[in-house]
């Protein structure tokens, strides 16, 4: 028995040595992806498989783990980043750029394949550390079937929207089903991003130079938020993303406000769903912009042992055909030149974006964590309808986040 065990162990050791030896010829690269939605995972997997097939000398290992963003942050503390990884737009990644953890891609020829305007938005202190790839857009989802049944036009202005809500209410239908249990902060940040394209007002409030009552952003958001609350299905207060989808799917609400990333899930529940995503009307009567964020960018670790192979993978990603494959599966607007984006539910959003009616999400402009903290004030506003408490709380939070 002992002899047999010894033999078995020896054989296993030999085998493992052999597998190391064969792995030597192939350069293995670790790729960590920041997204966890099924569509996105499948899109990335498809692209990586294609690359591995075309490049026998390189093997990109696709690491799929839950909560990759936290893992990435943890590994950044140890200066142990994967060779390549996906990132969203956030101050956290800017800290990584600043600390020299990420390779400077400025001037790489493959960046010419990226739409110039988005590339310019991705720059950090004049340098490009990430290749922007796809956008997320935020707006209003409408159940077109309910709207048609009640003879309501798709709203273009805030007044239209409120009138539509009134008509729906008269017909016994709630206007909105929203994920208000823990996602108010996101809608607040996106709506505020439409009301102002910078954080000058917040800076002024933090410096004591502006009263929150005079802030166009705070006032505009707060009043719009109360308008929306009047027509919101009360079950929204206890709803997360999934429950808000259910309210919308079960016709317990005619509209919801969310990002294009929800589309896959919604159509997954009901492929025949009659819905459209349109720009959320601007509550101040100004241009109703689609709020966009650079949702996916790709980075290379500054410490990778195989920079050339990593750059080769980036170059592969930047090809129109690759990006098309990715977009067709992942489902969000791509910023690689020549990619065709055709999702019928997002037609109006695409038209608005093509016309340049976009506003950039301010999440990465605000100090990290501000939107969650301010989101608490916004949630309380929905629960109590107390505007004064909101202004007071917002002021304290803004002072705390900007001055500390």
């Amino acid at each position, binding site marked *: 028995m002992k002899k047999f065990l010894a033999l078995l162990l020896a054989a296993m050791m030999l085998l493992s040595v052999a597998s190391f030896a064969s792995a030597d010829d192939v350069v293995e690269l670790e790729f960590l992806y920041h997204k966890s939605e099924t569509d996105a995972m499948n899109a990335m997997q498809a692209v990586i498989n294609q690359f591995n097939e075309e490049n026998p000398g390189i093997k990109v290992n696709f690491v799929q783990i839950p909560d990759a963003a936290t893992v990435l942050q943890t590994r950044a503390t140890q*200066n142990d980043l994967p060779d390549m990884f996906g990132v969203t737009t956030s101050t956290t990644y800017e*800290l990584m750029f600043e*600390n020299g953890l990420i390779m400077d891609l400025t001037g790489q020829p493959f960046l010419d394949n990226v739409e110039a305007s988005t590339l310019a938005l991705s720059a950090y202190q004049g340098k490009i550390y990430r290749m922007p790839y796809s956008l997320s857009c935020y707006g209003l989802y409408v159940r077109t079937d309910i709207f048609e049944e009640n003879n309501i036009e798709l709203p273009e202005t805030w007044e239209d929207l409120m009138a539509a809500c009134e008509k729906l209410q008269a017909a016994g239908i709630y206007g909105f089903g929203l994920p208000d249990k823990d996602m108010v902060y996101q809608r607040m940040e996106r709506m505020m991003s439409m009301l102002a394209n910078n954080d000058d007002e917040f800076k002024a409030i933090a410096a004591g130079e502006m009263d929150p009552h005079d802030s166009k952003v705070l006032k505009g958001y707060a009043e719009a938020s109360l308008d929306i609350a009047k027509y919101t299905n009360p*079950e929204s*207060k206890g709803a997360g993303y999934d429950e808000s989808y259910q309210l919308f799917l079960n016709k317990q609400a005619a509209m919801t406000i969310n990002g294009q990333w929800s589309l896959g899930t919604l159509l997954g529940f009901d492929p025949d769903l009659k819905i459209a995503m349109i720009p959320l009307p601007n509550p101040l009567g100004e241009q109703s912009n689609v709020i966009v964020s650079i949702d996916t960018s790709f980075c290379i670790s500054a410490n990778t042992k195989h920079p050339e192979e990593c750059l080769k993978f980036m170059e592969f990603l930047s090809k129109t055909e690759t990006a098309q494959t990715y977009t067709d599966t992942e489902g969000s607007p791509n910023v690689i030149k020549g990619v065709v984006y055709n999702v019928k539910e997002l037609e109006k959003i695409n038209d608005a974006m093509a016309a340049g009616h976009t506003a950039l999400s301010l999440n990465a402009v605000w100090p*990290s*964590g501000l939107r969650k903290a301010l989101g608490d004030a916004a949630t309380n506003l929905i629960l109590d309808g107390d505007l004064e408490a909101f202004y007071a709380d917002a002021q*304290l939070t803004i002072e705390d986040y900007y001055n500390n």
Partner: protein
Amino acid sequence: MTAVPRKKARQHTMRREQAIAYTIMTLPGLVLYCVFLILPILMGLYYSLTDWTGIGNKFNFIGLDNYIKVFTNDKRFGNALVFNLRYTVYLVIGIVVIGFMLAMLLNREMKGRSFFRTLYFMPAVLSMITIGLVFKQVYFYVLPSIGKAVGSATFSENIIANRQLAIYGILFVHLWQGVALPTLLFLSGLQTIPVDLYEAASIDGANAWHQFKSITVPYILPTLSVVLVLAVKQGLNVFDYINSMTKGGPGGATTSISILIWQNAWERNRFSYAIAQAVITGLIIALISFVQIKYTDRKKVD
């Protein structure tokens, strides 16, 4: 003449050898303990004196600034501390009362005793996150339906979306799961009490209450002490249930210290500040545990 001292000397060497052997045997454990527990604590203490963001190696030494800020300029920490203390008091009372009562019931001679013991222990083997997510659905779909059916306004709404009630929603789930282990501990404690003590007491005319007060309680005190330490620690560190059910909401109403620390570290990139808060929390837990062990130690049966 020389035999006795030589024997003594031999005994002495043997004892020394034994001592060395024991020391060597404890070494691996000691090293592991130091590397994985003491060292991180010391490193944490050091980082709490810096302005480290959690990313990269650049940081400055800022002395006690983080600690000063926690006490002088952080309303959230104060709110979270109050939440945790309130939560801990409810949790400890709940765990001790329910756990002890269950243990008393399960300690009686009855049919299907093993079955009930297993049944009550079941929740303990499930993961906290799973249970949190399950109850999140219960609170959204099931409870409001029941509330509407019986005409209760309070329960017709999702209770974890209500600032005043959310704490009880979380507490209920925590107790549902958290009471299992203390029940088991109490049960084992009850079984160490010699039966003849009760017999002697009843012969002497002691009633059930006297027996409980003078026999059961003193014997159970060491167990109670352990249960209290565990419950207090759980209450002051509560994170999983909150993160899976309310994420600290609605409007920050269930933000516990752990949630706040997590937010500071991961969402706000203020690692060193989060560590300072963690150190303060650790000290509070140590202090409460110390007082409580001292107190229960004085009263227990030796």
